[in-house]
């Protein structure tokens, strides 16, 4: 049994605004995204029978929205949770457990209104075996593999900076992007060193915002007002909860496993992908994705980015909303990657590409901890 073409995204929307929103709590951002996505799908919340979300409990989100679900999924493994939610919603819909799934994200990442605390037990494994050495959030954990990739493959600072430059070029085209001023490789390398080898402009933004998706069976998809975006393939995996336990610091095992599952299910080749969204928490994250998902060989992502092949006009349009680096990054950005894939496949994107048939949205959870991959299409005959 396969989930291939079993469901479609029929509602997709973000919060009205992205960026700095101290006047809204995290759960309100979930709800705003949800109400916008329901309006996009042309349905009321009373038709929703499945609630899936991360950050907040799905129970809390269901209560806040006034929904009594028959299927709940609180898979919360970081920024790729929403890719995984789409996959789980497809499985649940195919199994007959629910009919109309609502997947929500909302995070007050910048203003931190209505967010849970950071505190945790000193007995947690990470508190015993990583925090005593002065790790300070993602900039010091997510980035640890980079030097190893440089040492083994000759990846350069300029190549990594090129990721930020190419992504910014897409953001320049998007009025909703937070950072839109053109930048050069020199600008990136001259920006403040956060944790060598990562500079400020190679780090994602920290913002407030949210978004949501409505997922139904492929048979029902045409009953909704917008062009359906079908699930062609999907994957998920996890590798570690501490970056120090990464098996090979030059590649993400979770990315590889998740990507292989998605392509096997989609029954298409890498060359058949027209558009890509690779979660860019830092400049190296899409480099690792490009290699792990099989678009280039191991160690070959640096030259690929340096040649600006992912920028506007390139042969591999990537992160066309401006990415986590320049568009928005609430903390769990994966929802926004999916939103851009949907917009591109519907023909609604700010930097719209012509003649699109397929898009891949690949998310990372935590710091290479987990992965989720969606291959989407607007072709009902796929």
């Amino acid at each position, binding site marked *: 049994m396969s989930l291939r073409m079993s469901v479609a995204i029929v509602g997709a929307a973000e919060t009205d605004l992205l960026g700095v929103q101290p006047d809204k709590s995290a759960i309100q951002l979930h709800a705003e995204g949800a109400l916008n996505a329901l309006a996009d799908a042309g349905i009321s919340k009373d038709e929703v029978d499945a609630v899936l979300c991360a950050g907040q409990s799905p129970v809390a989100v269901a209560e806040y929205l006034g929904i009594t679900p028959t299927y709940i999924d609180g898979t919360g493994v970081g920024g790729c949770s929403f890719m995984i939610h789409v996959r789980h919603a497809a499985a649940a819909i195919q199994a007959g457990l629910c009919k109309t799934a609502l997947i929500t994200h909302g995070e007050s990442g910048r203003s931190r209104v209505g967010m849970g605390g950071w505190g945790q*037990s*000193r*007995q947690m*494994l990470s*508190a*015993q*075996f*990583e*925090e*005593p*050495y*002065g*790790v*300070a959030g993602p*900039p*010091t954990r997510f*980035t*640890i*593999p*980079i*030097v*190893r990739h440089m*040492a083994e493959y000759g990846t350069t600072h300029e190549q990594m900076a090129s990721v930020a430059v190419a992504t910014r070029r897409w953001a320049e085209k998007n009025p909703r992007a937070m950072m839109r001023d053109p930048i050069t490789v020199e600008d990136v390398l001259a920006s*403040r*060193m*956060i*944790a*060598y*080898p*990562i500079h400020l402009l190679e780090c994602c933004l920290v913002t407030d915002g949210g978004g949501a998706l409505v997922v139904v069976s492929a048979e029902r998809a045409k009953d909704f007002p917008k062009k359906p975006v079908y699930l062609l393939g999907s994957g998920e995996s996890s590798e570690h909860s*501490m*970056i*120090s*336990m990464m098996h090979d*610091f030059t590649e993400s095992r979770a990315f590889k496993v998740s990507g292989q599952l998605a392509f096997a299910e989609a029954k298409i080749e890498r060359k058949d992908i027209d558009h890509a969204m690779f979660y860019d928490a830092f400049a190296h994250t899409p480099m690792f994705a490009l290699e792990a998902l099989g678009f280039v060989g191991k160690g070959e992502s640096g030259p690929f980015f340096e040649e600006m092949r992912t920028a506007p006009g390139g042969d591999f349009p990537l992160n066309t909303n401006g990415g986590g680096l320049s568009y928005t990054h609430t903390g769990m950005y994966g929802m926004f990657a999916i939103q851009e894939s949907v917009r591109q496949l519907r023909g609604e994107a700010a930097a719209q590409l012509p003649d699109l048939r397929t898009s891949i949205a690949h998310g990372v959870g935590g710091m290479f901890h987990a992965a989720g991959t969606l291959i989407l299409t607007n072709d009902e005959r796929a």
Partner: protein
Amino acid sequence: MPKRPIPEATPETAEFWAGASRGELRIQRCNACGRAYFYPRPFCPRCSSKDVAWFTASGRGTLHTYVINYRAAHGFQDYAPYVIAIVELEEGPRMMSNIVGIEPLPENLPVGLPVEVTWEKQDEQITLPLFRPRGAAS
């Protein structure tokens, strides 16, 4: 002055921290598959065998990868910039630590640099295994 976050042992990790207080890097080896592993668990993460034993590692290893952190974590203001590293122990397992006893500059930190453990006492219960270039003065 804020202090480094001090870990607290669990039953499974107590021997590691007790050893650290004595200046011994205690890790485990699986008697079934022969592999050494870290972090501590009462079974082998590779083959699930419960036939595992503690031993004292040599304390020697190599620098596997690292960052140089310029934005100090809470309690680390006196240390920044500092090197957060993954050290590959001679016995095979890798662990996170700091590289000390060296100016924190990329040219001083080639991947593969031979390092050895050095101990930094935090309190009566907890001593941290840090690493310095092998042969460096203590």
